[in-house]
């Protein structure tokens, strides 16, 4: 099938057709956590540092070198000379300072929120045109890694001068990356064009200079079967979100499945202990041991979805293997429920003081086959006399109810970031607050807070000694499972599929694709 721009440069070049499941939302870089956003931002913005996806080491990129003081309250970066944004403005110390002032402090007037990867930010100082220094109120050991994440993509001062609302239009995101947004049909398509004068990719990459492709066309194709069908029929080159049951068919026809690990908090279920049903640790432990993660992975997924062995994924920084705390043991579960005073009722559901052990949870559409996962969990729990009610609901009810622990005692968790800070991101009250603690996201919580957990989480984000920091991350994982605050189920990958002739695709540390080195081979 002929398409404009395809096969122009024999062997290399051409326009890549990328099918995305959902339209991007706001492209302010700190909102890059949403996968459709990250997929675009990763092509059009560069970062101060480059996190090697294999070693997780932080390497130079726009910053040629950096230093920090011992207690990690000051960082100084030397900027690579000659880098420009696509609007012609220089990417210099002043531009970097402006970026991190905005990401670290937000901008109320322009409605720009603070980035979740930057903790304790105070201010910046431009030392000379190519040197910038950042000051923090408290130790911020995660900052260096934070400068490499998708949420820290550097954008032109012109972009940061826009109102938050205007950044829903991809054309307003001016970066220094190898591709530039050339056109957009809102909610439907985003077109990127290669930047011919690009020559500042990370120096450790094989690819240098201009990207090979001439452009990338992101087309929103919500229907799963249409995305995979179009890829197999040769109408597209690369697709995001491949369901596990489609993987075999694609591989059978020599298409390539890319399962990029997200290296963060595993896909699972967390509890809101403010809710009396799950306030007793024995009940939570019982439900944890009533959950058969192995069966879920084997029934619904493929080998690309490893069974969880801790709160965070095995390739994540600070991971420790806690598989022995995650055993499937329905007998133990039944015992624990007996001890907690939950007696089997006539309909098979356990009762205590007139209440039934029925929990509700909202399905989370971005997580792979989430509804099916929760249904299987519900079946498994019913064997010990508990039930999980799965609610769909519109975004409004879901958002409002999710803040009310009495309405939603359980919650689907998952977040990717290749730094131990990710545990804090997921559970700390002023971050994502998965457990709903007092003083956190919800004003409906009256009592529950866990000071021990919170001090562990704060310690992770502030510990300067790298080894001690990993040890703290291990302690937090143990504590979360001992308290059975969360039931980890599987390590969530981002699963993509690509045509056999598409070469050189790479992935950043938490699974966003990078097309800088990619090309479409003859086919």
């Amino acid at each position: 099938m002929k398409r404009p721009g395809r096969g122009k440069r024999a062997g290399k070049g051409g326009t890549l057709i990328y099918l995305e499941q959902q339209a991007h939302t706001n492209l302010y870089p700190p909102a890059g956590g949403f996968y459709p956003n990250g997929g675009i931002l990763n092509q059009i913005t560069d970062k101060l540092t480059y996190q090697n996806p294999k070693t997780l080491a932080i390497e130079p990129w726009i910053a040629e070198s950096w230093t920090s003081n011992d207690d990690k309250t000051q960082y100084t970066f030397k900027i690579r000379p000659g880098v420009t944004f696509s609007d012609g403005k220089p990417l210099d110390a002043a531009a970097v300072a402006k970026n991190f002032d905005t990401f670290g402090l937000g901008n109320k007037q322009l409605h720009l929120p603070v980035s979740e990867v930057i903790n304790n930010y105070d201010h910046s100082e431009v030392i000379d045109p190519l040197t910038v220094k950042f000051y923090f109120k408290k130790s911020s050991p995660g900052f260096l890694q934070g400068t490499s994440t998708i949420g820290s993509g550097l954008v032109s001062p012109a972009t940061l001068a826009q109102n938050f609302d205007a950044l829903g239009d991809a054309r307003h995101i001016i970066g220094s990356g190898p591709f530039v947004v050339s056109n957009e049909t809102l909610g439907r398509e985003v077109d990127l064009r290669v930047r011919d004068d690009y020559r500042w990719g990370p120096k450790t990459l094989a690819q240098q200079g201009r990207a090979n492709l001439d452009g990338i066309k992101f087309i929103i194709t919500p229907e799963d079967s249409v995305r995979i069908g179009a890829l197999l029929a040769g109408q597209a080159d690369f697709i995001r979100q491949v369901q596990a049951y489609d993987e075999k068919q694609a591989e059978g026809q020599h298409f390539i499945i890319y399962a990029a690990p997200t290296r963060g908090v595993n896909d699972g279920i967390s509890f809101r202990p403010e809710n009396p049903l799950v306030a007793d640790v024995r009940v939570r432990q019982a439900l944890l041991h009533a959950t058969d993660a192995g069966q879920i992975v084997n029934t619904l997924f493929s080998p690309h979805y490893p069974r969880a062995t801790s709160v965070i994924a095995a390739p994540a920084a600070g991971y420790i293997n806690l598989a022995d705390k995650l055993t499937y043991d329905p007998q133990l579960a039944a015992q624990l429920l007996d001890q907690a005073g939950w007696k089997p009722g006539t309909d098979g559901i356990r009762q205590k003081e007139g209440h039934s052990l029925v929990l509700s949870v909202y399905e989370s559409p971005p997580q792979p086959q989430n509804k099916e996962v929760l249904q299987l969990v519900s079946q498994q729990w019913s064997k010990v006399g508990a039930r999980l009610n799965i609610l769909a609901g519109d975004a409004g009810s879901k958002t409002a109810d999710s803040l009310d622990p009495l309405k939603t005692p359980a919650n689907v968790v998952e977040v990717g970031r290749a730094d131990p800070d990710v545990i804090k991101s997921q559970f700390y009250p002023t971050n994502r607050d998965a457990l709903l603690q007092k003083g956190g996201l919800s004003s409906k919580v009256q009592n529950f807070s866990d000071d021990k957990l919170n001090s562990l989480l704060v310690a992770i984000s502030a510990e300067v000694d790298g080894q001690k920091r990993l040890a703290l991350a291990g302690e937090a994982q143990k504590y979360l499972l001992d308290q059975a605050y969360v039931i980890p189920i599987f390590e969530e990958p981002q699963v993509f599929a690509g045509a056999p002739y598409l070469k050189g695709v790479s992935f950043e540390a938490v699974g966003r694709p990078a097309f800088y080195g990619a090309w479409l081979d003859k086919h």
Partner: protein
Amino acid sequence: MHRYLYGRLGQALLVLWAAFTLSFFLLQVLPGDAILIKFQNPDMGLSPAQIADMRAVYGADAPLWRQYLHTLVDFIRGDFGYSVQTGVPVAQLLTTNLPPTLRLAVCGFLLAAILAGGMALLAGLTSVRWLRGIWHALPSMFISVPTFWLGIVLIQVFSFRLKWVPVINPGEWAGLILPILTLAVPICAPLAQILIRSIDEVQTLPFVAVARAKGASRAGVLWRHVARNAVLPALTIAGLLFGELIAGALITETVFGLSGLGQLTQQAVNNQDVAVLQAIVVISATAFVVINLLVDLLYPLLDPRLKMPAGAAL
């Protein structure tokens, strides 16, 4: 005739205002709101204080009556406001999404009318009993085909297997072939059913027997006498099918990944993007009113008996 028109116009305005007001208050009753949905998103990692700031900045905490008056006045002036979710003026969303949906709906409806007319004529002309039975059964079968499933089957067969038309990045019109077909099938079914039934009914009327007795052929009678009389009830249904058309367009646009009003509505509903929904409700109500007005004005042209005496007030 003039007074009739003015009366209908006044009625139309009343319907529009009612639709606007009703939708405004119904949308307020829903739990949550667009700002909560947008900023409570865990990917944003905002604290409650920051979210409260955002609410204040967007003026989401103003009293309801003031928000209502404000929105109503803006609408009358033709200003549809901003979409909270996409951060784009609603007018801009409409100018990109309305034309494709109109094109899809008009073409889908025309094809549906042709299909329905064809089925009805064939049913009227066929004298073989079992074949007539098939023509009669076809519409009920079409009604029960889910649009969603039909779209996917058409894509799998004609695009992926036979490779006749691409679904990804197709030409402007090539990309419409399958969606139009998908939309037309469920729309044509009720039309065909009504047509077939009224043809059957008209054919039992005495004047048909008279025409037959005069030696007119089956086709001649059908064409000259029956069709004209049978088309009136179908026309009424056609006006009402507009709602069906919008629902069908929503599903079709999702399956084919087309931009359009349907897809816009779905996103706006999911995100409670009130400004966008408000505009869509008013536009749909306008279209509904206009279509039904046109249908009413068409009646007298088809059936002279319905012509009003001059000066009649109705």
